[in-house]
């Protein structure tokens, strides 16, 4: 009873936040509603027992919120010059009707599912002992659907190249944030002995421990490379915002090797699968778990630095140099 009430509240709040983010008058309000929506979704996944998804949702929600906040801050208020005029009432109504139809069709499809719904949960769980894993989500990500995960990491690398390519020619290979007024000092003039710097000294030991823990337990319990990598990326950004460390130069060869190392190890293990187990990304049963852990631990530093640099943006010409 209490559970049902809680679920109802959660679902209602999530729908409300979603509606608000669509209906909000300006980008900033819409974004805040979207942020709340992501957090509510993470809670909903927890209620459904999908802790892995909840952690990922919280991590991606936080990352995309920072990206979107940065984008909103750069956008001028009001419509951009040269933007097409907003759609008229007829086009809005047609779009609304189309969206409603899709939603209703999806609801109908869910209600019409056979009971019990078709599920791959049992075959997924049956393969766990062969992989030496306890967490079926990790088994899917690095075992059964490893190709998807590998491509996902490569796509992230491409995304970073895309972000970097926005750098002006003069700044190419330089550091992100180098052009900010607070470059080399704490963020936005925060006091050098103030709370931000204190937080950036206190939190990273805890955050780094938590990040590595999330990767380590990923084989047996909710967690994994992505969740752990996000926490590690946040620690790097925090220290950089407090002016305690400098973000690496995007032209640095060491940095580029570090970014490529994780996917490269993943790819190499995949190729070794031809020799050891007969096909790409196949693991021989005896060493499946060590190989999976090797991939996860090789991916983590690459992913953490990659995510931090995605958020930091392209290289900027140093202040005073423009």
């Amino acid at each position, binding site marked *: 009873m209490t559970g049902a009430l809680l679920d109802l509240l959660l679902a209602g709040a999530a729908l409300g936040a979603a509606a608000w983010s669509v209906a909000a008058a300006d980008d900033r309000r819409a974004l805040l509603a979207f942020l709340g929506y992501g957090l509510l979704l993470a809670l909903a996944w927890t209620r459904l027992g999908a802790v892995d998804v909840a952690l990922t949702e919280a991590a991606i929600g936080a990352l995309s919120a920072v990206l979107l906040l940065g984008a909103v801050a750069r956008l001028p208020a009001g419509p951009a010059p040269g933007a097409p005029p907003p759609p008229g009432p007829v086009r809005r109504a047609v779009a609304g009707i189309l969206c409603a139809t899709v939603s209703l069709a999806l609801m109908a499809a869910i209600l019409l599912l056979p009971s019990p719904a078709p599920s791959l949960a049992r075959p997924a769980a049956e393969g766990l002992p062969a992989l030496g894993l306890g967490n079926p989500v990790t088994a899917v990500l690095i075992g059964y659907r490893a190709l998807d995960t590998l491509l996902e990491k490569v796509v992230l690398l491409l995304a970073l190249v895309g972000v970097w390519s926005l750098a002006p020619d003069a700044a190419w290979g330089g550091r992100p944030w180098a052009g*900010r*007024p*607070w470059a080399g000092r704490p*963020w*936005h*003039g*925060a*006091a050098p002995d*103030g*709370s*931000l710097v*204190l*937080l950036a000294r*206190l*939190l990273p030991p*805890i955050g780094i421990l938590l990040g590595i823990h999330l990767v380590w337990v990923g084989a047996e319990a909710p967690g994994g490379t992505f969740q752990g990598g996000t926490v590690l990326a946040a620690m790097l950004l925090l220290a950089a915002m407090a002016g305690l460390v400098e973000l690496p130069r995007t032209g640095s060869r060491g940095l580029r090797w570090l970014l490529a190392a994780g996917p490269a190890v993943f790819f190499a293990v995949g190729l070794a699968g031809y020799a050891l187990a007969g096909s790409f990304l196949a693991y021989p049963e005896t060493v499946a778990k060590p190989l999976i852990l090797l991939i996860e631990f090789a991916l983590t530093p690459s992913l953490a630095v990659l995510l931090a640099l995605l958020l930091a943006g392209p290289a900027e010409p140093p202040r005073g140099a423009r």
Partner: protein
Amino acid sequence: MLRDTVTLLAVSAGLGFFLAGTLGLIRFPDTPTRLHALTKADNLGLGLVVLGLLAQAAEATTALKLLLAWGLALLAGTTGSQLLARLARPAHPAGAHPAAPPAGPPGPAA
């Protein structure tokens, strides 16, 4: 029985702080007063909720995790509100050092 009473009382008191903090966040006129309302909810409200849940914790590690969550929320909330307050102060535009004299018109925001 005693545990449940402690939980009920502490969590209810905590929810009271959250309610008051939310009201303040919506109703107060400017950033410093809104921050004041918000930090009460974060610090005391969450603290009381954690206190209430401590009475239900079966293991010491669970209790420690609850306390850690509260401590981290305190740390993050304090830092966030300090930074927001600094940015919101009209006498100190973003980028200015706090020791700078407050006189003179605010410079262009960074």
